[in-house]
């Protein structure tokens, strides 16, 4: 076996894993703060990616510019989505709250993907941007890949610092740890919930453009991404971004090597099986041991 092939696959795994981690960041923050599993989270990426590639095909704008355009759009969407559809459910009892939030987010998933498929067509599309290839011996890296990899790392660090240092980051962490306690200390929990939805959805916009630059997207890939993102936050710990990045890269590598050594069609099963196994061994989540 040629070592360069292994390196090439590992590189691809790290890239896709980094993108998974970006999706997981938003889901993790949202779940941590609002205790809502947003089933539509990955679909937001699918729809965002389709939109980005559509805009690119029509205007040939710089993807970075498209990204800056999409961030506020998805952010506002996330804010309104929580504020109008999920926040009112918090007044209901626990069972109705859980059921209601599942139905609302699954409903949103179906609407988003179906409407996107109706407008843009169900066919996969991407942002066909060609950069030059850099060769290290037999290993070929496109500058796109290099830029994206660098971008993911810088972004994760920046996000990590933002959540650690900023007022909003502290508010999010406070609400994650103890909702009532944070409210008593003057954090407007409802506001933080909605803003976290906005924040998490905004991150998805970044992931969506990067994803579309590397891989084809179609309106229906969303749910699979949500499952992967959930596996990642269970593996890396809820609210733990660095853990999520490591878990994401691990998942990306696992999928890459499964495709290569075994069979491509089984790669999607990795995340689901991994998720079930982790949930069974650590019912409370890997990074969040049972507290008493």
């Amino acid at each position: 076996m040629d070592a360069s092939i292994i390196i090439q696959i590992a590189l691809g795994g790290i890239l896709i894993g980094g993108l998974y981690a970006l999706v997981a960041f938003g889901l993790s923050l949202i779940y941590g703060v609002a205790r809502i599993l947003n089933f539509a989270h990955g679909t937001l990426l699918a729809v965002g990616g389709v939109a980005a590639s559509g805009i690119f095909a029509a205007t040939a704008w710089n993807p970075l510019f498209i990204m800056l355009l999409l961030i506020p759009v998805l952010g506002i969407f996330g804010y309104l989505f929580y504020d109008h559809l999920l926040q009112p459910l918090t007044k209901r009892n626990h069972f109705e709250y859980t059921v209601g939030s599942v139905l609302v987010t699954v409903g949103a998933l179906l609407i988003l993907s179906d409407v996107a498929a109706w407008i843009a067509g169900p066919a996969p599309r991407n942002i066909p941007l060609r950069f030059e290839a850099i060769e290290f011996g037999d290993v070929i890296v496109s500058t796109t890949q290099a830029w994206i990899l660098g971008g993911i790392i810088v972004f994760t660090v920046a996000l990590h610092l933002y959540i650690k240092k900023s007022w909003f980051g502290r508010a999010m962490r406070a609400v994650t740890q103890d909702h009532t306690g944070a409210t008593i200390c003057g954090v407007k929990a409802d506001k933080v919930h909605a803003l976290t939805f906005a924040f998490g959805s905004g991150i998805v916009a970044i992931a969506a453009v990067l994803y579309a630059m590397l891989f084809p997207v179609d309106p229906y890939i969303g749910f699979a991404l949500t499952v992967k993102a959930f596996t990642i936050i269970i593996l890396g710990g809820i609210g733990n971004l660095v853990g999520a990045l490591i878990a994401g890269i691990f998942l990306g590598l696992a999928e890459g090597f499964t495709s290569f050594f075994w069979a491509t069609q089984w790669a999607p099963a990795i995340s689901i099986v991994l998720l079930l196994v982790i949930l069974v061994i650590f019912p409370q989540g890997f990074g969040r041991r049972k507290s008493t």
Partner: protein
Amino acid sequence: MSNYRYWLGGAFVLAVLAFIPSTGSAYTTTLLFTMLISYALAQSWDWVGGEAGYINLAHFAFYGIGAYGFCLSLLAGVPIILCFVIAVVATSIIAFIVSFPLFRLRGDYFAFATLALLPLTELLAFNFHFTGGADGVVLPPKYVLFEAYYIAIGLVGLTAITTVWLIRTRFGYALKALRNDEEAAEICGIRIFPAKSKVLILSAAFASIAGALQGWQLSYIDPTTVFGLDVALIPIAMALLGGSGLLWGAVVGVIILSLFNQLLIVSLPILQTAIFGLLLLLIGRYMPGGLLRSAVVRNNKWIGFLGREHDQFVRATVSAPTTDNLPLPKQPVATGEPVLECRNVTMAFGGNVAVDDISLTINAGEIVGLVGTNGSGKTTLFNCISKVFEQKSGEIIFVGQDLAGARRDDASKLGIGRTYQIPRPFSDLTVVENIAMPLMNRGDESASLADSLGLATQFAAYVGLTEHLAARADSLNLQQKKALELARALACRPKLLLVDEVASGLTPMEVRTFVNHIRELRDEYGITIIWVEHIFSALAQVVDRVIVLEQGSIIADGPLADVVKDERVLSTYLGSAATEDA
């Protein structure tokens, strides 16, 4: 309304349904067939969702497995009856296996793990050779609509009967208990894992027959039609639209949503999935409790009965007890024998040692006060004795039996009854049902459901809840909830009763009544009691001795009068005010 009228009504509906195909309209028959299948799916989902409180989003996976099991065996030339058997057995086995990992999870995690099962089954069906991959399974063309329709009527009848049966059985009550509070359910003697596993298998078995029938009727299945996300959630949406946990919920939801779906297919060529998604979203946003729970239905004279909650059915049948004697055997106090021995019991949470190497002996017929500052380990010790926690090290011996490895329900059945400091009643059940729960779950000594409910009224009368027999537990105030806790603990027929701060918050009058109860329980019924309490005046009236805990260790043990003079107790617990009193 009598049972007899229900049966007659049900039989009439099934007879009318059976008559439909002879009118000759294949369209009507197909539509009704779909509705029958949907009802079986929605209602069987609700056994797990509405009754046991677990949101199982993988219900459709069982439907798909049933469809595949049936179609593949039929294709292999197996006789038709046997094909159904294979479908049911295969699905049940899979449900049994997945119940082990799934029921380690709760709430959102359970919902997500089950939802992740759907794409997994879809992927397996796609990738395996024997399932035909993306091509699916095609049966030889044969018109079986009417046969399938009649079997579906049978299935629906069976589903309805099972639903009614669940309401009025101990098994159904076990599910209702665990949907409210699993730990409290175990304390009442219910083995929760088998109950959860059983209900999942039951629901999966019904779903598999539905899948088999649908596959047979369509004569074609492929992975997306039986495992796809958009179709998979339809039955769940139906049950929720009507009202989860209500007798008529699934029926109403199925009728409305099926007709709506039909309308959609006929009138709208595009965006069907989006409209369906919108419907889900609106149900979730505006009535996650269901249509039948809305004020419009509830307050309507004619259809209001459809939205009746479980406790309203109970209300009609509860009558006040003829006697307020406690239905426990009167027995003299058997003094001397040790009832409970703790030997070097240690319990730690991470680095925090809550109970540190405690050894104590409680003799039969004793009333022992357990005191100590907040966080001194009193409740943790209770939790170890009642097996809520398994202690890190040390032995707990109860009437000569080592409790190592015993489950919570074992401890309850052996005769350890306990109350919770913060009451944990089964919120959406009535007072009688709460108290009846341990009575009907005593292993070999279990009383029948009717007897349990009857006896429960006497326990309720003893603690002064006669006025509230049919009230939902969550409508009680704190004192009444504490009284309910005591009644439920007594209904465990305890040899040893662990009372955790029942008196705090009571008026002096109520404290006196409670103290009299404690004394009577020991003197008349021979129950040994450990009482955690901060109110010394209450303890002083009844306890034989007091054990004082501080930071997880025993610092004093003896008669109250001696203990309050102990230097260490005074300095660490009672403070300077007590020194003045003494």
